[in-house]
């Protein structure tokens, strides 16, 4: 589903590579934690998958597409097959829960019929039934993140990328979000989650890829966050 071959990413203003000769593969349907300190290359990895950045060298394949050969105008097509969730939710404050999720379908030209069918279903899936008409600031942080997950998932992407989705949430709420991501993963969606949250990684017992200064220092199935640090 995601395959990196000898990928190096250098940012023009920095001397050290953000990713250094990275080779890894994420299979379809996997749930992968990307861990490592700040600046270890987690976000760069996610941005490369979305083709928000281009690698300095190396090959990347995502959802069967060779990103090297993917022309710029086809990038939106790629992103429709990838859902993305961020630490800061990124909801539109003047739109309701329903409208926020529907927005993702509207702007890729889906019909109103399809929106009226898919949005309520995904609201139900993330457990926000009955809160369709709330505005984001009338929701708790956990609920807002559920809206963001719903928006990322409503188009049934092949891959869900999550960049510290629990970073702004308390532990109990985080567990709820993780259960949700796990449920999404069980539908066959590949989930890649960058996180600092040690307890979550330890609880989930999924594959863990640890990055440090752009190198993979650990790739472990059913891993924990790390050794005593």
């Amino acid at each position, binding site marked *: 589903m995601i395959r990196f071959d000898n990928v190096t990413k250098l940012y023009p203003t920095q001397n050290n590579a953000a990713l250094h000769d990275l080779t890894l593969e994420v299979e379809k349907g996997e749930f992968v934690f990307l861990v490592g300190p700040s600046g270890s290359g987690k976000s760069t990895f996610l941005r490369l998958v*979305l083709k928000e950045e281009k690698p300095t060298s190396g090959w990347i394949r995502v959802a069967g597409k060779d990103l090297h050969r993917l022309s*710029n*105008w086809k*990038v*939106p*097509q*790629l*992103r*429709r*097959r*990838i859902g*993305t969730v961020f630490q800061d939710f*990124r909801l*539109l404050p003047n739109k309701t829960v329903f409208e926020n999720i529907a*927005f*993702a379908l*509207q*702007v*890729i*030209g889906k019909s109103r019929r399809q929106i009226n069918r898919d949005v309520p279903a995904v609201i139900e899936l993330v457990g926000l039934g009955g809160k369709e008409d709330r505005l984001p600031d009338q929701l708790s942080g956990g609920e807002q993140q559920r809206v963001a997950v719903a*928006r*990322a998932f409503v*188009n049934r992407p092949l891959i869900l990328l999550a960049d510290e989705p629990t970073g702004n949430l308390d532990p109990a709420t985080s567990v709820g979000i993780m259960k949700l991501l796990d449920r999404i993963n069980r539908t066959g969606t590949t989930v890649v989650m960058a996180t600092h949250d040690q307890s979550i990684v330890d609880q989930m017992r999924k594959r863990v890829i640890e990055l440090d200064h752009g190198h993979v220092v650990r790739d472990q199935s059913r891993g924990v966050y790390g050794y005593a640090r």
Partner: protein
Amino acid sequence: MRLQYIVSEIGTGLRRNLTMTLAVIITVAISMAFLGTGMLLRAQAETMKGYWYDKVQISVFMCNEYDRGERCTDGMVTDEQKADIEQVLTAHPEVKTVHFESQEQAYEHFKEQFADDIAESITPDQLQESFRVELKDPERFEGVVSAVAGLPGVHQVQDQRDLLEPFFRVINGLLFGAVAIAVILLVAAILLITNTIRLAAFSRRRETGIMRLVGASNFYIQLPFILETAIAGFVGAVLAGAGVALIKAILIDRVIAPSFLFIDAWVGWSDILVIVPWLLAAGVMMSAVAAFITLRRYLRV
């Protein structure tokens, strides 16, 4: 493509940036108005050239009995002198036709061109007889002028284009000024559009960020911005078109034309019908292209 979404986006966008939108409309309107004025002046110059150059003649005025001076020492031109002059003219290779205008005919023309009370104050014998010479090539008049200028009985040789020169100089000057102002204002309009787009893109960065993330096409993301600017440009150009029409209806038809009765060559409404669509197209295109280029920078994929 969901039309409803785009329409509502344009509506909110225009309202949110109302002051900047108005600034764009006004600058586009003024720059297009000057451009339109320039086109109007050009059309006016062309109309006048067409009107006059067809009729351009060399007029060889001959002495009448009241003329005095070094050319007309003997008073009224004699028949022999007239025959000599006509002979020189008809023999000249550049001359196409020679037409004699008597004092009576000159008086008739005078009456046509000026109000009756002026015409009544003079008599035919105060006017001059003349040969009206049509040239094969209106550009090559010097040879004919010098051939007859010194002949006895000739009071004055007038190339009619000399009379028109000042007119065209004024028109060309105005034309240059109008186009120069139009260009300066056009630059101002483009800078304003750039700034407006930048503000609009910034105020909507959340929306556009999410749109990029969920895979909306570039075209779809940029379209509301481009249409907004194009609408502002269109409104500005419509105002400019109305301004040009007013210049024609009021300034030319009511003010200038009545004070230059002897000129019967003014831009018509058909010229306006050509100019206004150009202004609309230029206003819309300029705005849309400026928006498009700005967006390349501020809404990167």
